[in-house]
């Protein structure tokens, strides 16, 4: 394998994978909580919350990046707080790239998870209640297992989206080799240099392969957990 990629390309691919994996793993609980609220909650301001969650999907990514810069920059309110209490900084760091990827992936993950929660037959939950199950027990033995295929699909979609994240990342944390230069940023950077078509092609093929692998993985995961029902997400 090491002969297939240059050291530079390895660094780019591994960084992309790290940024996306961290972004998705940290976003799963947040996305699930939001999906649950939107699927099952009844509260004032639900429409507004729904809109805010979906905002990164429709905002120009450069605006999202700029908002992240204001909030999570070294002098931003959230950025300063996280730096003081947890020692986390985002500026020009891969953590910032992960945060940008997480914010951009959130709407997709919430959507997929919300659909899977809404698809759980409430009548099965009623049946479980008559059999003596408390709401917590119903959640962990009925609702959650039945929603798992959709949750996995949401996570994989989020991962694929994170791999492709560009606009918010370059605005928020710039394009720094080894730190924030993920696949799309590396491709963009190579495009600026005359005569680098070969490298652009190679990096683009890697991007296609990674995205394809993520989508196939999600199908396989969902089929395996479908109790032989052959459910799928795509």
């Amino acid at each position: 394998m090491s002969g297939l990629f240059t050291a530079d390309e390895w660094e780019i691919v591994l960084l992309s994978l790290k940024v996306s994996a961290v972004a998705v793993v940290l976003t799963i609980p947040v996305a699930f909580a939001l999906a649950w609220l939107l699927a099952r909650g009844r509260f004032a301001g639900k429409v507004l919350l729904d809109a805010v969650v979906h905002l990164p999907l429709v905002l120009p990514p450069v605006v999202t990046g700029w908002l992240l810069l204001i909030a999570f920059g070294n002098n931003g309110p959230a950025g300063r707080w996280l730096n003081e209490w947890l020692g986390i900084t985002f500026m020009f760091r891969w953590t910032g790239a992960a945060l940008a990827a997480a914010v951009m992936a959130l709407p997709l993950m919430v959507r997929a998870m919300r659909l899977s929660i809404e698809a759980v037959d409430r009548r099965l939950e009623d049946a479980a209640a008559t059999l003596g199950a408390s709401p917590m027990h119903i959640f962990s033995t009925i609702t959650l297992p039945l929603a798992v295929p959709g949750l996995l699909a949401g996570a994989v979609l989020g991962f694929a989206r994170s791999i492709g994240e560009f606009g918010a990342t370059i605005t928020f944390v710039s394009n720094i080799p080894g730190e924030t230069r993920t696949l799309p940023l590396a491709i963009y950077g190579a495009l600026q240099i005359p005569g680098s078509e070969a490298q652009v092609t190679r990096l683009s093929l890697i991007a296609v392969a990674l995205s394809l692998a993520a989508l196939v993985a999600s199908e396989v995961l969902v089929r395996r957990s479908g109790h032989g029902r052959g459910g799928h997400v795509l």
Partner: protein
Amino acid sequence: MSFEIQVERQLGERTIRAEFTAPGGLTALFGPSGAGKTSVLNMVAGLLKPDRGRVLVGGEVLFDSEAGIDVAVQHRRAGYVFQDGRLFPHRRVRDNLLYGWALASPEARWMTLDHATDFLGIGHLLDRWPRTLSGGEAQRVSIGRALLCAPRFLLMDEPLSSLDAPRREEIMSVIERLRDKLELPILYVSHDRAEVERLASQVIELGG
């Protein structure tokens, strides 16, 4: 063991009302579709909250709007057999049967898995997934699941309606044996007169 039911609930344009007292045996709630039979059953189970009224089973108050009593569904110990079975699709037959059994307190249990599978003739189905069962098999499993949760009474909502004639006969004889051998009070919803005449110890007419 008896049912003392007096409930009222507004559902959209309709007002569901039922008032009856029934001793043990199988009490059929009989009436046309849309009369609110299932809603009455759900109010006894605790799945639907009456606007006002009382629900007593075996002298125990499960719901009383005036006294502010509303026992939670999971504590009512009703064995509910649904029209559509409602087996959990992600659990094998064995785990469906044991779902309520595992949650019941050991001293409240009055049936074992072996006893239930013998009684219903479903021992050979234990390792199957619900989706692979025929309609009659699924309904027997769902009856077994309800019996195993240590219920003090049974609620049955048209348990025969999704079955063809031979399967109906098979499940009907199961219900007769439930009624006669287990001496469990049963509230039974149906819109089929022949079925009601054969099974019911008493009939409550609703709506129409």
